[in-house]
Structures are given as C-alpha cells and as structure tokens.
C-alpha cells in the first residue's frame, strides 16, 4: 500500500489495530480487553514456564500427527480418486459430505469410539484437515494435460513412474493449496479436540484462563496460536509460489 508516495511495509495496518486495542484497553471499558502492552508482557512472562511449554508440546504433537495423517492419507487418496472413475464414484459423496459437515458434532462419537486420550484428538485433527486435501489433490489430478499422461505411457512409464514422476508433480500446485487450507483447518481441529475431548495442551490453558478471568493470559495464548497458524500458512503459501512458475503453463 502507498500513502503520499511512501510504500508501507506489509501488514502495517496491524499497527493501527494494535493501537486501537491499546486505547480501548487503557480506557478500562471492559475487563475482557486488557491493554495490548499488558497482554504482551504476560506473553513474555508465561512463554518460558513449564505449563506453557508442556501445553505447546502437547498441542504440537497432536497437531503434527494429525497433519501428517491428513497429508499422508489425503494426497494418495486424492490422486487415486482423480485417476480412477470407480473410486471417485465410490468416495466423492463421502468426501463432499465431510468437507462441509460440522465436524465438531462428530467429536463425541469419536470419544466413544477412541476414548478420551491423545488418539481421539489426533483423529479429530486429521478429520478437520484431510477432506480439503483430498478434494484439491483430486482436482489437481483431473486437470492434468491428457497428452502428458500419454507421453509417459508411450515412453514406457510403469504405473509407479507415472504416479511419482507425472501425476504428483502435475497436481502439486493444487495439492499445496489444499494442504495450506487443510493445515489451517487442522489448527481448528486440534483446539476443538483439546477443549472437548480431554482438557490438555492449549485447550487446557484456554479453559483455565477463561474460567479464572485471566484475560491477558487468555489473549497471550491466543496470539501465540494465531501467530503459529499464520506462520505455517504463510510458509505453505511461499511453497505454493515456488511452483507457480509452471502452474499456469501446464
């Protein structure tokens, strides 16, 4: 953005909103919004505490496992759905239902099936992330230039070669787009899991702080979470840009 010919650095509008937050906090209008400076002070004071680090590692473990499963299962399933008409007919209705379903409502069922532990949280996270990854990968595979596939076959590609040397790369821009959205959804999944299934990780901290009206603690943890999700999303966006040189010319 330019103002009076000066180029503003990216996200400089955040400063304005931060300032507004600070002012509202200072007026003491509501206990719900403490001044931003106070939130950051709290943030730095809790960030090294064992409770915070434990929450971070619990959340990271559940989140990373969930993301791992949604990618490791989602991409192959998406590729196979894009390649095989039969598989597509069989699975597409389910994928479409789950991608738009209110998954939170399913969490109690998961608790009954898989218990109250880490397993259920990981499954919840996976369920939040996986569907959009499948759908995007499938879309990526379906738009592959027919003659690229014929080229690989005519030069004697085995199905494995075709999968790893053509289909995967040709669908990569869509796959990365799907992974980016899937990962953002997985953040939602892990927090919902930690709030509903068993009160651990960041979910436990949110519970604790909100129940005790420790609003600046509450906001501090939320800011950490937002920052993490944003960083991951930006990193995947950066990867997406790296393959965009061929995305347009496939």
């Amino acid at each position, binding site marked *: 953005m330019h103002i009076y010919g000066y180029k503003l650095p990216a996200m400089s509008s955040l400063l304005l909103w931060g300032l507004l937050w600070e002012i509202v906090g200072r007026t003491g209008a509501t206990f719900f919004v403490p001044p931003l400076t106070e939130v950051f002070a709290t943030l730095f004071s809790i960030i090294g505490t064992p409770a915070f680090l434990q929450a971070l590692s619990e959340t990271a473990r559940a989140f990373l496992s969930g993301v791992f499963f949604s990618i490791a299962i989602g991409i192959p399933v998406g590729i196979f759905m894009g390649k095989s008409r039969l598989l597509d007919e069989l699975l597409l209705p389910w994928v479409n239902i789950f991608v738009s379903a209110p998954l939170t409502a399913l969490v109690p069922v998961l608790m009954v099936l898989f218990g109250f532990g880490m397993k259920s949280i990981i499954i919840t996270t996976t369920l939040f992330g996986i569907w959009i990854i499948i759908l995007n990968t499938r879309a990526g595979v379906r738009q592959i230039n027919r*003659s690229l596939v*014929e080229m690989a076959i*005519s030069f004697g590609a085995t199905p494995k070669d075709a999968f790893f*040397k053509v289909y995967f790369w040709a669908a990569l821009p869509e796959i990365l787009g799907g992974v980016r959205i899937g990962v953002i959804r997985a953040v939602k999944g892990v927090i919902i899991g930690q709030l509903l299934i068993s009160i651990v990780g960041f979910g436990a901290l949110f519970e604790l702080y909100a129940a005790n009206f420790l609003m600046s603690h509450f906001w501090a943890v939320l800011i950490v979470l937002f920052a993490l999700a944003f960083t991951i999303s930006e990193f995947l966006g950066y990867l997406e840009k790296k393959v965009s040189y*061929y995305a347009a*010319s496939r």
Partner: protein
Amino acid sequence: MSQTEKAFADAAPLDQEIAVSVRGISKNYGAVEALRDMSLEFPRGQLTSLLGPSGCGKTTLLKIIAGLLKPDTGEIIVNGKTVTGPGPNRAFVFQDFALLPWANVLRNVAFGLELRGVPKSEREDKAEKYIKNVGLAGFEGSFPHELSGGMRQRVGLARALSVDSQVLLLDEPFSAVDEQTRRKFQEDLLALVANENKTFIFVTHSIEEAVYVSDQVAILLPRPSRVSEIIRPSSFRTKGVENIRRDPEYLDIVDEIWSSLRNYVE
C-alpha cells in the same frame, strides 16, 4: 474390389522393406465408427504422411500404432512383431509438445531414457547430444515456459530421437508453431529422414506440408475412415529442399490432393 485394395493396387510396387504394417484395423467409439478395416504399409527408412480432413481418424490410427489405443479388430506389426502396447521401438512426438513444465530442457529430453531406467550420467550425455542436434545447445537449463513454441517442439523431437526408436510417430508436430518456424522444421525434418535410418509416420492436415516432406502420402477419407489413395512423389525428392516448392510435380500433386479432398471439407 474394396477401395482400400484398389488403392494398394494403384500404388507403385515397393522394393523397400516394410517397417510398420497396419492390417485390418477397426476402431469404434461407442456408436461412432472411427476406423473401418484399414490396412496400410510403411516402408523402412521413409517418411509416410497420413493426410486427410478432420475426423478422418488419422490421429486415432497413429495412437493405435503407438499402442496408446487398442483397436477393436486387426493388428499392427512393427518389425515383424505384433504391437500389444507402447514399446521401445516407437517414439511419439506430440502436437502440444507434452513437456514436463516443472523440468528443464535437459531432463525433458532425457525423460524417455529416464523411464527406461538408463543411469543419470549416461542419459544426460545422450540428451545433450540430441539437444545440440536439434539446435538447442545452451538451453539445457531452461524451462519449457521460457521457450517459444518452436523451441518446445524441438525439445519434444529431441526426446523422441534420444530413445533411438526405429519408428517415429509425429502427431501434427508443427501445427502449433508459426509459419516461418514451421518451414524451417520441414527442412530439418527432410535432413533428419535422410540422415537417420528411421521410419517416420507423420500426421498432418496441411497438403503442402505432406507433399513437401513425404516419400509417400496416404490420403484418408472420413465416415467411415479409409485409405483412398497412396501417392508417391518420384522426381523432386532429390532436387534439394529449396527447389521442391516450384517443382511442377509438387504443384500437380498438391492440386490433385486438394481436388480429391475438397468435397469432404465443410
């Protein structure tokens, strides 16, 4: 006598060995009859064009020869062996180039060899040689989107040459490049046919192009698709590339083909 047999009887007797023969091929797409009982022979070391109006099944025939499509009846014999699928004795050049957009020129040219399991250093040596041959030296590290259409097709050609198949199948290879590049390509193709001892099967919809580059032109007519005529230009092939286009025989053949095709062009 069927039209196909008649066409064969009219054609000049061949003293060459036959590299590829198409025997009684039929292909239907649902209710649409794409090819009916088509037979055709391709002499070794020569370039044969498949020429005809759109919808005459020439690309379908080429893909059947490549093993990319299965015929409903009939068989393809390449060097004495029946074709059951794609094989290393045939290489395909695609109309839209079919290059991997994420790979540079070197890897694209070497990709056919890569799929055949040739070790990296060996296939890259070979690829570099053919990149030079098609006039792309210095572009090994470029990506397809950085090249012009003509250069991209040179990459496609180098890829097909580098696997060293006896038969080259070209599906309207020059239709997506501009007119001047196309003329250069046609001259280069003549040199290629003369220098490499390969059999070329060339699909085109341009009459001039077919007559210019071919040792033999098979005219295909649509609905149902059949070979109506085989023309073998005799005199101008040896006169040098710059004289072909004003040779009386060249002009006569172009005219003759147009008069037999004009009724089929909407």
